[in-house]
C-alpha cells in the first residue's frame, strides 16, 4: 500500500471515529419557546406544562436530557393510559425534534466545521485511499487476497464494520434523538436544497448518496477496462444523486410532496398510503403525474423493461438499494451463501414479503375507499408491522448491516418485494439470460463465488446450460471474473433461452443426450 493510501485510511478512520463520537458532545437546554415552536398547536399547552421542570436546566449530555424528557413525558402519558383516557394521550414522538432544538453545543453553532471534520474529511480520506488503487497495474480482475482480508472475509474488521452498521441503523430508525448532533451538521445543506431543516432522513440520504459516489469511484478503479461495469456504476450513481437525493428535496422546496420518481411499489411500500395519495392528488398536475407515473411503472414499466432487458434494468442500474449494494457493498459480494438450502429460504422469504406487501396495500386501498373503522385499524396495524419488520429491520438493519457478514444483497435477495415481482417476470417472460459458452467452463467457481445473489452460476455453466434465474440482478460480475470467457449477459430470442437438457459441445462420440 502506498503511503498516500495509508494517510487516506488514517484520515478516513479519524473522520468516522469523530462522526461516531459526535453524538456524545454538546449541551442541551430546553426553553418554553422551543417547545412552542416544535410541538403541534393542540399539544403546546400540555407539553409546556409537562416539560416545565426541564426549562432553563443545562444538560451536559443528550443521554441525561433524553432521559429526563422521557421520564416526564411518559409519566404524563402513562397516567392517562392507566385512567383509560385514550383521547388525551399524546401519541406524537417529540423526542427528536425537541432534543435537536435544545442542542446548544458547538455543533449547533458550527455545523459546517463539524461536517468538515467528520463526513467531508472522511470522504477526502476515502478518496485518497481509493484514487491510487491499482495504479500502475494492468486492466483486469482485482481479486487478489480477498479471502486473506479481515475486512472482506468475515474477519475481525468485517465483524466490527457489520456491528457499526447495525448499530447505526438501529439508532437511525428507532432512537434518532440520540444523533441530533449529526443531523444538525447537515441542517444548512438541507435548508439550501429544500428550505427545511434536516431530519434524520436527510442526514441518511446525504451519507447514503456520498457512499454511493465515493464507492462508485472505487468501482471505476476496480473494474477499469470493463465497460459494462463502468456504465452501470455511472447509472446507479446518477440515479441516486439526481432522483433519490436532489430532486425530491427540490420538490419540497417547490411545496410539492417529497417524491422519488424511480422508486417503485412495492419497494416503495408507502406509495398507496393515504397521506402519500392525498399529497399527490392535492399537488396539481405534477402531483397527478407522480401518481400516474408511479402506477405506469408498476403495471407497464416493470413488465416491459424486464421483458426486454431482465430485472437488471432496475436492480443494478437504477435502484437505490441496489446502488448501495453495488458500490459500498461490492467488497462483500463474495460472502453470499450459494447453497441450495439458502436458495430455498430465499424463495420462501422474498415471495412471502411480496405477498405481505400486496395484502397490506390491498387493505390500504380498500380502506381508502371504504372508511370502515375496523378496516382502518387493521390497516394501521399492518402499516406499523410492515414498517417495523420489513421497512426498517429487514431492509435497513439486516439489509445493509449484514453486508460484511452475509454479502451485499441480503435485502435484495431475501426481502425486496419489488425484486420478487421483477424476478417473476424475469423467470417466466423475458429475453434476458446469461448465456454459457459451449464447453469452455472449467468449473473453477469464480462466477459462483462472486455472485452477490448467491446463484451457483457454475452449476449451470459447467453443464452448458443458460442461467435463467429470477434472482439474477444482472450485475455482470460473473462474466467479468470468468477466466475462460464462458458467461455473457444477453437479451435474445425466447426460443432456446431455457435449455433444460443441454449438450456440451465438443464430444462427437455421444450425439443423443439421455
Amino acid at each position, binding site marked *: 500500500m502506498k503511503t498516500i493510501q495509508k494517510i487516506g485510511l488514517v484520515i478516513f478512520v479519524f473522520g468516522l471515529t469523530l462522526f461516531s463520537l459526535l453524538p456524545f458532545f454538546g449541551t442541551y437546554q430546553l426553553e418554553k419557546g422551543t417547545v412552542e415552536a416544535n410541538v403541534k398547536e393542540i399539544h403546546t399547552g400540555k407539553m409546556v406544562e409537562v416539560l416545565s421542570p426541564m426549562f432553563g436546566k443545562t444538560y451536559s449530555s443528550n443521554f441525561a436530557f433524553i432521559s429526563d424528557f422521557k421520564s416526564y413525558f411518559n409519566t404524563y402519558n402513562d397516567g392517562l393510559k392507566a385512567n383509560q383516557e385514550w383521547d388525551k394521550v399524546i401519541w406524537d414522538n417529540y423526542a427528536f425534534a425537541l432534543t435537536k432544538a435544545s442542542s446548544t453545543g458547538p455543533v449547533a453553532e458550527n455545523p459546517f466545521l463539524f461536517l468538515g471534520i467528520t463526513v467531508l474529511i472522511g470522504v477526502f480520506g476515502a478518496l485518497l485511499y481509493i484514487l491510487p488503487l491499482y495504479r500502475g497495474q*494492468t*486492466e*483486469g*480482475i482485482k*481479486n*487478489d*487476497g*480477498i*479471502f*486473506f*482480508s479481515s475486512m472482506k472475509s468475515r474477519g475481525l474488521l468485517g465483524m466490527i464494520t457489520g456491528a457499526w452498521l447495525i448499530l447505526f441503523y438501529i439508532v437511525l430508525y428507532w432512537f434518532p434523538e440520540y444523533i441530533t448532533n449529526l443531523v444538525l451538521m447537515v441542517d444548512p445543506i438541507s435548508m439550501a436544497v429544500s428550505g427545511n431543516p434536516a431530519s434524520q432522513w436527510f442526514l441518511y440520504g446525504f451519507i447514503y448518496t456520498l457512499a454511493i459516489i465515493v464507492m462508485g469511484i472505487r468501482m471505476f478503479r476496480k473494474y477499469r477496462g*470493463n*465497460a*459494462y461495469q463502468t*456504465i452501470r456504476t455511472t447509472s446507479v450513481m446518477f440515479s441516486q444523486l439526481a432522483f433519490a437525493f436532489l430532486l425530491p428535496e427540490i420538490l419540497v422546496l417547490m411545496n410539492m410532496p417529497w417524491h422519488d420518481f424511480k422508486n417503485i411499489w412495492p419497494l416503495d411500500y408507502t406509495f398507496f398510503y393515504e397521506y402519500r395519495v392525498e399529497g399527490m392528488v392535492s399537488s396539481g398536475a405534477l402531483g397527478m403525474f407522480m401518481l400516474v407515473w408511479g402506477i405506469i411503472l408498476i403495471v407497464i414499466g416493470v413488465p416491459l423493461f424486464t421483458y*426486454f*432487458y431482465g430485472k437488471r434494468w432496475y436492480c443494478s442500474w437504477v435502484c437505490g438499494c441496489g446502488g448501495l449494494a453495488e458500490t459500498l457493498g461490492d467488497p462483500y459480494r463474495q460472502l453470499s451463501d450459494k*447453497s*441450495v438450502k439458502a436458495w430455498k429460504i430465499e424463495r420462501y422469504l422474498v415471495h412471502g414479503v411480496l405477498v405481505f406487501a400486496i395484502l397490506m396495500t390491498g387493505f390500504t386501498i380498500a380502506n381508502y375507499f371504504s372508511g370502515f373503522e375496523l378496516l382502518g385499524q387493521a390497516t394501521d396495524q399492518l402499516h406499523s408491522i410492515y414498517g417495523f419488520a420489513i421497512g426498517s429491520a429487514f431492509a435497513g438493519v439486516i439489509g445493509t448491516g449484514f453486508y460484511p457478514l452475509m454479502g451485499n444483497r441480503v435485502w435484495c435477495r431475501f426481502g425486496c418485494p419489488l425484486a420478487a415481482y421483477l424476478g417473476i417476470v424475469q423467470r417466466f417472460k423475458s*429475453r434476458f439470460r446469461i*448465456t454459457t*459458452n*459451449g*464447453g*469452455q467452463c*472449467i*468449473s*473453477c*467457481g*469464480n462466477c*459462483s*463465488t462472486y455472485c452477490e445473489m448467491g446463484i451457483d452460476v*457454475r*452449476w449451470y455453466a*459447467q453443464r452448458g446450460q443458460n442461467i435463467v434465474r429470477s434472482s439474477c440482478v444482472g450485475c*455482470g460480475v460473473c*462474466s*467479468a*471474473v470468468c*477466466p*475462460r*470467457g464462458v458467461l*455473457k*449477459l*444477453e*437479451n*435474445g*430470442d425466447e426460443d432456446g433461452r431455457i435449455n433444460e437438457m443441454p449438450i*456440451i*459441445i*465438443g*464430444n*462427437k*462420440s*455421444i450425439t443423443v443426450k*439421455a
Partner: protein
Amino acid sequence: MSKANRNIVIIGNGISGVTCARHIRKKDESAHITIISGETDHFFSRTALMYIYMGHMKYEHTKPYEDWFWKKNRINLKRAWVEKIDFEEKSLIFSNGESMAYDVLVLATGSKPNKFGWPGQDLKGVQGMYSFQDLELMQANTQNISRAVIVGGGLIGIEMAEMLNSRKIPVTFLVRENNFWDNILPLEESKMINRHILEHHIDLRLGTELGEIIGDESGMVKAITTKSGETIACQFVGLTVGVSPNIEFLYAQPSKGSKPLEGFLKEKVLQTNKGIVVDRFFKTNIPDVYAIGDCAEFQEAPASDRKNIEQVWYTGRMHGETLAYNLTSDNPVPYQPGVWFNSAKFFDIEYQTYGFVPANWSEEYESLYWEDAGGKIAIRFLYGKSDMKIKGVNAFRWRLRHDYFDKAISEGWMFEKVLTHLNIASFNPEFFKSHYKAVLDHYNKQKGKSLKVHKESFFKKLIGSRA
C-alpha cells in the same frame, strides 16, 4: 457380465472420474459406484487451485458440487491411496492395508509434474504444481521468501508466476524456448504474451535452460544456475515442465506375496507406455479395467490433430462422459472428439482457440492475424489457401462463441463469411469496444477487397437480438 448391481470403482476424483461417475448414475440406478481419492475428500476444480493461493477463493469454493450431492446420488467417496491392484482377484489394496473388491475398475489417476533429473530437484523448496498437496506445499514453501524461480514456459508455469506475483514475490521465469509457449502459439501471439509477462514485472528469461539447483547445508534451495552459467539466488523453485501420466503405483504388481511377477498370466499385467494404454473405448488390455483422462494413452491418436495423451480439462470430461455411456449402453461408441477447443488465461489476457491453429503451418494454409494497437487484443484465423474454408481461430482478450466456431469449422464455412459475421460470433460482454470492423478492414487492405460487415438493424441492437 450382468450389468445389474455392478460394483464400479473409480480411482481418482478429478474431472474425468467424477464425470464418469455422474453419468453412470444418470443411466444406471443399480450400480454401486465408488470414487477413491487420496488427494481430497471431495471433487474440486484442479484448475482453480491457483485462485486459492491468490486469495480469490477458498478451497470450499472450488468444489463444484455441495457435499450432500454425493450421498444423494449414491456415489460413495473413499479417501485412501491405492497401493496395489490385484487384477486377478479384482481387488484394490490401500496403503493402510485395507482392500476393496470391484467388478469394473476405472483408472482416472491424472498426472504428476515432470522432473528431468536436474541436480538438486528434490531439495526443499523445489516443487511442481498439480495436486492439492502441491498447493499446500507451495503455501508453506513460499512464506517470507525474496525470490522464486519458475522453470518451464507452459500454462502451469505462467499460472505459477501469476500466483507468486499476487503475493508480491519477485519471480524469475526461465523459458527454454525463444518465446513463451511457442511450440503451441504462433510467433506473434507468443511475443504478445512475452510483453504481457514483462508488463507484470516478471523477470522473463527466454531461451534459458536450467543448469542445476543448489541447496544450502539444511537441504533448502538457495540458488539455481542456468546452462549459460548465471547464478540466481532464490528460495523457491517451481518445476513446470509439463506433466506425465500418474501410473507409477501400477508398476510391479504382485498381487499375492508368494506369486512372483512373471507368474502372472499375460493379460493380468496392465499394459502401459507413457500412460495406461487404451483403445478408443477406453479399454485397457485387462477386461473390465478402463482408463480415462490424463493417465490414459490411446493406441492411436483419436484424430489427426490430437495427441495420444490428452491432458486437458475438457478432454478429461469427454473421456468420462463417453466411458460412462459405454458402461451403461449395449452399443458402445468409440471416443470421437469434435472440433478441438481450449482456453487459458495469461495474467489478464484470456485466450480461446477453436479448430486447427498450430505454431507453424504448411503452404496449404493461409493466416490472417490482427492485433489491436494496444497490443493486448488479437485474433488469428487459419484457412485453406485453395478452398478458403476456415480451419481454426486463436483469440486473445476476445471472447468467441464456441457454438458458432464449432459449426463454422466442422461444416467448413467460407473464411470470408466468418469474417463478415464476426460481430455475431463475438462473445464479449455488452458495451465492450468491438473490433470486427478493424479486422475486416485489415483483411480488405491486405487483399485489396471490399467486404462489408453483416449489419444488424438498430432495433435488433436495441433489444439485443442476435441471429
